[in-house]
């Protein structure tokens, strides 16, 4: 049976109740704060609707607000492939202990992609007869 879980390619850690999520392949980092942290901490799970209902029931006076928040952050996490649907076979899934929140704090997912541009750098260069690049003055790049 497939379950929703944090993409195993994402390195994640909880700091003082906030999530840092790192796609180490692409160099894109995310921070997640607010109710979304508690939602992720309940993973893996099969039934997204059931989990949403349980979380919404914690805040009986703000149900529609909470539901919209969960729906929005869920959509973003799926779009960024931070949450995926996958069959778990004999896999040890890391769990994160986040306390049930006593008040509703809207989720916020922030994305940091500064390092991405640097992955693409590949200056044109000449090579010598052995294939080694020839170092010219204008090819000496400042270390980033």
């Amino acid at each position, binding site marked *: 049976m497939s379950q929703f879980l944090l993409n195993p390619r994402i390195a994640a850690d909880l700091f003082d109740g906030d999530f*840092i999520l790192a796609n180490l392949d692409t160099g894109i980092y995310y921070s997640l704060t607010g109710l979304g942290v508690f939602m992720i901490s309940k993973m893996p799970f099969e039934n997204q609707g059931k989990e949403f209902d349980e979380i919404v029931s914690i805040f009986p006076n703000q149900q529609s607000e909470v539901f919209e928040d969960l729906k929005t952050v869920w959509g973003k996490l799926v779009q960024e492939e931070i949450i995926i649907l996958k069959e778990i076979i004999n896999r040890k899934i890391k769990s994160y202990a986040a306390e049930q929140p006593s008040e509703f704090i809207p989720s916020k997912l922030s994305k940091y992609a500064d*390092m991405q541009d640097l*992955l693409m750098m590949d200056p044109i260069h000449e090579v010598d007869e052995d294939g080694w690049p020839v170092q010219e003055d204008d090819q000496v790049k400042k270390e980033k």
Partner: protein
Amino acid sequence: MTLKDYFESSLNLFLSEKNLLNQNLDIAGRQVRIRFSSARLLAQFSPSIQHLETSEKRHEEITIYVGDSKSISNKLKIPPWNKDTFNAQGYANILEQKNYQIFFQPWIPQVSLYSRKHRIAIYWVNSENEIPWWEKTFSFRIIFHWWTRDLPAQLMHAGAVAKNKETGFLITGPSGAGKSTTCLNLVKNGYQYLGDDYIWLEQGNPDKIIALYQTAKLEAENLLERFPSWVPFLKNPDTYKKQKAIFDLKEMYPENWLSEASLKGILLPRVSGKRVSKIEKSKKMLSLMAIAPTTLHHLPHHRENSFKKISEIVSNTNTYNWELSTDKVENSNEFQKFLANEFSIN
């Protein structure tokens, strides 16, 4: 050809040389043996790590061979894979690098290699004149990074200063935040220097900052505006405007030099444009975001392992935001007050 084959054929070039020059270092109590194929290469790489040199001869925990085509009888072959195999970080996703590692940026005529099992590394450059200027300011950084995979240690992109051996701080933040300036200003004000770019963090109880490199670097503009009295001490007076201004901090401030200090906190400086300087506790995740992306960008191998260690280190210590004043004296006073209030140090 496999990476193992390439490593072994490269190593054989050195093993057949008879007159290698040895330099022994001590990093966190572990002996490093570096074997240079020429005195010129030794002279190029020594300045940043000279403070680690030791005359003690113990069993080496890692051996690094350093050579170029002029000083080794046979030239090292260029890595045999298509140049598109390696990305801008010098990392090859498609090569299995569990036991052997390679770092190669196809536009720079240098390559680094490592055998994890034997703890033997190779640094090769086509000629001594082609060593990138930045490589000499953090000698063998990628090799030390590979070595730390199997140690309770992690290289981190951060500066570090200390009040004394028991009270050290990492100083980190995004580019332009003021971390180098903060670090070097504190040194000018009598605090101990452990690094301004990369440090070695030895995990333990307590975690310890080890001064890995004694060089400091500043943008030329920053030097001339904020540290003009340092100009006579430039190590690269002819090229600093094209590169960065490079200094030997141990030589400039021998009384302010510290080889290691216990980690007591992480400071995140930020230029506020205000007169008031303020240090206050902040979220630990901000330190992770300040350290991990650039560290893992510069050192792309075994990123999961590194991310986990950086997370552990950050979790175990407090993070403090530092809103920097436009006034240097205010910043110095605020740091002093912070040490007194938070750590009872006068």
